[in-house]
């Protein structure tokens, strides 16, 4: 019974338009394979890594700055070590995992915030709508990464003034997720608001209202599903942007700390050693970041085209 259900579900996936457009694009299939491999490797990190790169007790300064295997190093550290003797292979696995977690968490936060604001704005209308949409306008005037950078600075200021009783390094992860989430909401809010404005005047909504369905239920069950297609497309493209922005902030030295490095932090650590010719600390996390972002971007582009036949 259950098996039959799965088989039927699988057949409906395989025969769908979306799957056809997926299969007929070799680039997209390749991007999907790369993404799956990266995700699987990162979440198996504790099993396949050589050491825990967050625990300084594992580092040995005696083996600091070892080159990778293909650079004249040995198999103890396949991708070499950094200036503290941290194994780069393990650091990259954990760092990629961190980048992916930050990306997903901040996109989810931005989506939740944006969808809620968009619904309220579109359904309530009036002064609330005007105020929320002006706020979105002002925020869209600035690049999201500048806003995230500023928010990070604000948190540091609050910590320096002892308003927040934390050490910045200890709360770096939630801070960066919060900064990114608060930077990306306007796109979602605008899209959802637009859909709400279009749908709320349609007959099926009026019908639901007449038979006495509560406003929140109408919004949630009747109107919101219509907005989810575009929202998902924005979210996929947003995921790549969020990963890039996190890497950029960490590279600038205001994101993830060196004790808990993401890909951007690793690249920044290596940046100090570029001119001395010790390139691997920067190059291997750099390649990983480029692969990850490119693959996610390609998937996002494909999803946008597949879900929106008008663009084809």
């Amino acid at each position, binding site marked *: 019974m259950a098996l039959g259900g799965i088989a039927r579900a699988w057949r409906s996936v395989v025969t769908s338009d979306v799957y056809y457009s997926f299969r007929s694009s070799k680039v997209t299939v390749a991007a999907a394979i790369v993404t799956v491999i990266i995700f699987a490797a990162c979440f198996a990190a504790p099993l396949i890594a050589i050491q825990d790169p967050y625990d300084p007790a594992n580092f040995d300064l005696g083996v600091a700055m070892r080159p990778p295997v293909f650079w004249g190093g040995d198999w103890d550290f396949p991708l070499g070590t950094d200036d503290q003797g941290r194994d780069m292979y393990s650091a990259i696995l954990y760092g990629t995992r961190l980048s992916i977690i930050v990306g997903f968490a901040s996109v989810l936060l931005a989506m939740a915030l944006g969808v809620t604001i968009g619904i309220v704005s579109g359904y309530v209308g009036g002064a609330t709508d005007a105020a929320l949409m*002006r*706020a979105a*306008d*002002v925020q869209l*005037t*600035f*690049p999201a*990464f*500048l806003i995230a*950078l*500023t928010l*990070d*600075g*604000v948190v*540091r*200021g*609050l*910590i*320096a*003034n002892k308003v927040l009783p934390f050490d910045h390094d200890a709360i770096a992860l939630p801070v960066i997720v919060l900064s990114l989430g608060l930077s990306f909401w306007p796109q979602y809010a605008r899209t959802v608001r637009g859909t709400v404005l279009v749908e709320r005047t349609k007959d099926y909504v009026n019908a639901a209202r007449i038979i006495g369905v509560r406003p929140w239920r109408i919004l949630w069950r009747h109107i919101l599903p219509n907005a989810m297609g575009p929202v998902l497309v924005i979210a996929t493209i947003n995921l*790549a942007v969020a990963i*890039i922005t996190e*890497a*950029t902030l960490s*590279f*600038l*030295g*205001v994101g993830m700390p060196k004790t808990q490095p993401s890909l951007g932090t690793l*690249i920044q650590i290596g*940046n100090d050693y*570029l*001119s001395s*010719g010790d*390139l691997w600390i*920067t*190059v291997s996390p*750099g390649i990983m*970041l*480029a692969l990850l*972002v*490119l693959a996610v*971007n390609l998937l996002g582009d494909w999803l946008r085209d597949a879900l929106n036949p008008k663009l084809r």
Partner: protein
Amino acid sequence: MVAFLLRRLFQAVIVMLTVALVAFVLFNYVGDPINAMVGQDTSIQDREKLRQDLGLNDPIPVRFARFVANAAQGNFGLSFRTAEPVGRMILERLPATLELSIVAALFALLVGVPMGVYSGLHPKSVGSRLLQAVSLIGISLPTFLIGILLILIFAVGMGLLPSFGRGDVVNLGGWTTGFFTASGLKALIMPAVTLGLFQLTLIMRIVRSEMLEVLRTDYIKFARARGLKARAINFGHALKNTLVPVITITGLQLGQLIAFAIITETVFSWPGVGQLFVTSVSAADMPVMSAYLALIGFLFVSINLLVDLLYFAIDPRLRTAQAAAKAS
């Protein structure tokens, strides 16, 4: 047109006031101006007296008005980190950032438009497929990775270009410029390419899709039928009509360039305001942060207004629409 401009001006004022409010909150509530001015051993009474003297106990609207008035004169107090006047710190570094952004924008335009025209005219050729692939990579890769890649190739690998700093600069009455020395120009190449690359791919894509669009229209077919030379059609008729969106994007992106210079300046240790902003964020130096935000906000808003004005200058349809509206 007047009504349109007034509406845009009103919007600009709203954005500016919001930014000023954010800067005000950063300056007064996230940072403590008194802590920044006095030492550890100042008594609470002295602090209170200073607070009173500086007017920090006044009602908030009064203080906000005073903050805006001071900001308009470039007075943002002293940096928490270096105890220098913030206005001067920013002014000293502004030329470096502006030169970098303008050269980057020129690079993006001068290379992006021809590339877009080429791939719009020959959309199926190998060359334009290559350009498309390269532009996808250019759009996907983070700016700082591209900068590092350039450093690896041209500074570490070939030793052709310097990987940091501005080279020798000439001081022209307070404006330092790298345009007049060989080392200054050499130092400008990699940062400008890094900063302009994203804009370049954007401009290329827009010109390409607009060209494809325009080349399908009747007046182009008509021009061909009249036997005009391909060059006259492609550049005189087609390209000219793609320029409106290109100018919009380039204009709006100039503001983005100044903000994204933050990343490029950090990669290349370029002594501009962006680098100052990053240092200030890590040090929670609120006066510099609020001054930078106010400056960026002001630049963005002025550029957006200028772009709106440019519309009227380049698109005759807008002017005739106005005239028609007036006549009816």
